């Protein structure tokens, strides 16, 4: 069937199977070099394999939960959304969540996803206790920081290239309510934006939407939002009795792809302008429900169709702290100059690096998306170069078009990863279109 990542680019014809248990999964691996796929939320071609793509969503059961430690054991295909639905009413929330809750446990591990609290708490891998991975011969290996640590090290953030993840144990965090105390800080330029991140480093959650269509004095103007889990005492009286009840959101859906003219430099500029003004006019402090704070886009199903039939490409790099100010300014200037606006430009301070070839490292990460066009592809090649000049590296879960040499120049660990795969006999057993493209 025709398959793509969330960016709907590239689209490839893939042979897909959906095994329902360990035995069937072991059998499917014999059909040829394979890649496991979760809910298809990575953007590019990391969960595509024309010969053997394995849909893991039938591994969708939660195995156990320990209310003393917050440890949940779940099969790889369980959706984060289901975990929240099950455990938030009991006072637990994911320790780390990406910007969508429609991701699987396996996908979160393979991409070592990060959230708005990365600068303090690290990525998803920091809360993982163990992972069960299937080897090419169908055997299941449990690995952790102490047991088979090398496999654990490379599986977290390893894009599924160490074998299908079948089960994992990780920790949730205690929360008193389903609400977030949100602080909104508009900034007028990049300098102010970065200063605000540093000033508010102790905020549990922080992220900025950055306007990437204004240059000059207002280059890098942003809306920063900070958040803390609200305590029961932060809620109004009427809400305290049911602290986890938040307003039900109607799920909207994009029924069809938007025609190409909907997103052009004028509409995107207008959108950015209005969005900034509205954001700047918001109250400084407000209570947000967890869905609005963490998953604003999840309320529009298939929002990826907004970008039209050709799909969109994402760019996400992280620059080290010392190079961030200059690097971000160069990136933003280049984007402003191109006139290709990005709707969803997100800037975030990251904290400590994780294991293996996991993406995050201390510094600033910028995420952008553009409708696919020859101009956008050229622009991203230039953004790659600017990021490289500033010692940046790239997020494989977003990538659909990087070259192997760009990857190697940005990340010395790529060659180690490749060597490890060869040494462990994984290179020919597990491949994705991305791993083939990037020679991993």
């Amino acid at each position, binding site marked *: 069937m025709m398959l793509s990542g969330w960016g709907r680019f590239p689209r490839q014809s893939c042979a897909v199977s959906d095994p329902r248990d360990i035995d069937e999964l072991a059998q499917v691996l014999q059909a040829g070099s394979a890649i496991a796929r979760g809910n298809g939320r990575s953007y590019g071609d990391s969960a595509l394999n024309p010969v053997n793509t394995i849909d893991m969503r039938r591994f*969708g*059961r*939660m195995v156990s*939960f320990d209310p003393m430690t917050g440890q949940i054991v779940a099969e790889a295909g369980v959706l984060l959304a*289901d975990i929240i639905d099950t455990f938030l009413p009991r006072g637990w929330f994911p320790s780390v969540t990406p910007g969508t809750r429609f991701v699987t446990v396996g996908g979160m591990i393979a991409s070592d996803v990060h959230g708005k609290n990365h600068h303090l708490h690290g990525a998803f891998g920091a809360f993982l206790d163990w992972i069960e991975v299937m080897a090419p011969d169908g055997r299941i290996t449990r690995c952790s920081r102490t047991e088979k640590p090398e496999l654990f090290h490379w599986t977290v953030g390893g894009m599924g290239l160490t074998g299908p993840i079948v089960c994992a144990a990780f920790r949730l965090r205690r929360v008193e309510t389903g609400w977030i105390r949100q602080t909104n800080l508009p900034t007028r330029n990049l300098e102010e934006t970065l200063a605000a991140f540093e000033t508010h480093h102790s905020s549990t959650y922080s992220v900025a939407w950055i306007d990437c269509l204004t240059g000059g004095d207002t280059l890098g103007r942003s809306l920063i939002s900070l958040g803390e889990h609200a305590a029961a005492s932060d809620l109004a009286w009427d809400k305290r009795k049911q602290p986890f009840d938040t307003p039900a959101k109607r799920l909207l859906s994009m029924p069809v792809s938007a025609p190409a003219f909907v997103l052009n430099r004028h509409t995107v500029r207008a959108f950015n302008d209005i969005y900034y003004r509205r954001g700047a006019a918001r109250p400084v402090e407000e209570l947000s429900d967890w869905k609005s704070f963490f998953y604003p886009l999840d309320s529009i199903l298939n929002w990826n169709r907004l970008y039209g039939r050709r799909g969109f490409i994402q760019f996400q790099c992280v620059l080290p702290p010392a190079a961030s100010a200059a690097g971000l300014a160069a990136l933003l200037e280049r984007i402003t100059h191109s006139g290709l606006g990005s709707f969803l430009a997100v800037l975030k301070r990251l904290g400590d690096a994780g294991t293996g070839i996991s993406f995050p490292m201390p510094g600033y990460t910028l995420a952008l998306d553009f409708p696919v066009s020859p101009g956008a592809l050229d622009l991203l090649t230039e953004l790659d170069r600017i990021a490289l000049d500033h010692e940046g590296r790239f997020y494989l879960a977003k990538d659909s078009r990087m070259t192997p040499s760009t990857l190697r120049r940005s990340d010395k660990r790529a060659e180690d990863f490749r060597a490890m795969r060869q040494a462990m006999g994984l290179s020919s057993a597990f491949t994705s279109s991305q791993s083939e493209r990037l020679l991993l």
Partner: protein
Amino acid sequence: MTRLPVLILGAGSDIAMATARRFAEAGYPLQLAARRTERLERDRADIELRHGVKVSLYDFDALDIASHSALLDSLPDLPGIAVSAIGLLGDQAENESDAGAAIRVMRTNYEAPACFLGEIANRFEARGSGTLVGISSVAGERGRATNYVYGSAKAGFTAYLSGLRNRLAGKGIHVLTVLPGFVDTRMTAGMDLPKRLTAQPDEVGRAIFAAVQRRRNILYVKPVWQLVMAVIRNIPEPVFKRLKL
């Protein structure tokens, strides 16, 4: 309010499990009866975690008719709702050449579920309440060359449910006949099913739950099947016998 449990017979099937999950979501405790219940342990844990209801597993062989009443005796509570998902598609070609195989299909699709629901019906009648759900098949509405052994057994089961409903109407006991049509399950894996006519197991589970709440008599999971079967039933036999369906 503590709810009486839902008993599901043949709980290992995809339709049964989807139905079980839908009832658990609504807060019903579950009694899951199947062969080799050890393969249902993970589902049990998952359902209990997600929905906070008690799930009990019971090992049984539907073809061992004498064991039916023993199983019912062993339940701590007589269920409020009993669902039979007992069934076996079998292989038509094998059924034509091997009477043993055909008998197995006939017994699994007719004798076993009918006798089991009949036994429960008597206990429900004594109590004066209960809902019986029989998962039959549109294949039972007219015999076709490609699966008439299975179809004839389902026809028997559908007629049995109809009679049971007639007998128990006015006695506080409701009987629902479910005709799922094509469903994307382990049973149909590898078949090339038309998408518009094929339901997902979840859809069947939700439809059964809703039909039980509304006390429906006959449920076509996808309404289009009602039309399809009306046409198929009304094709004159001289024409029908020459068709390849």
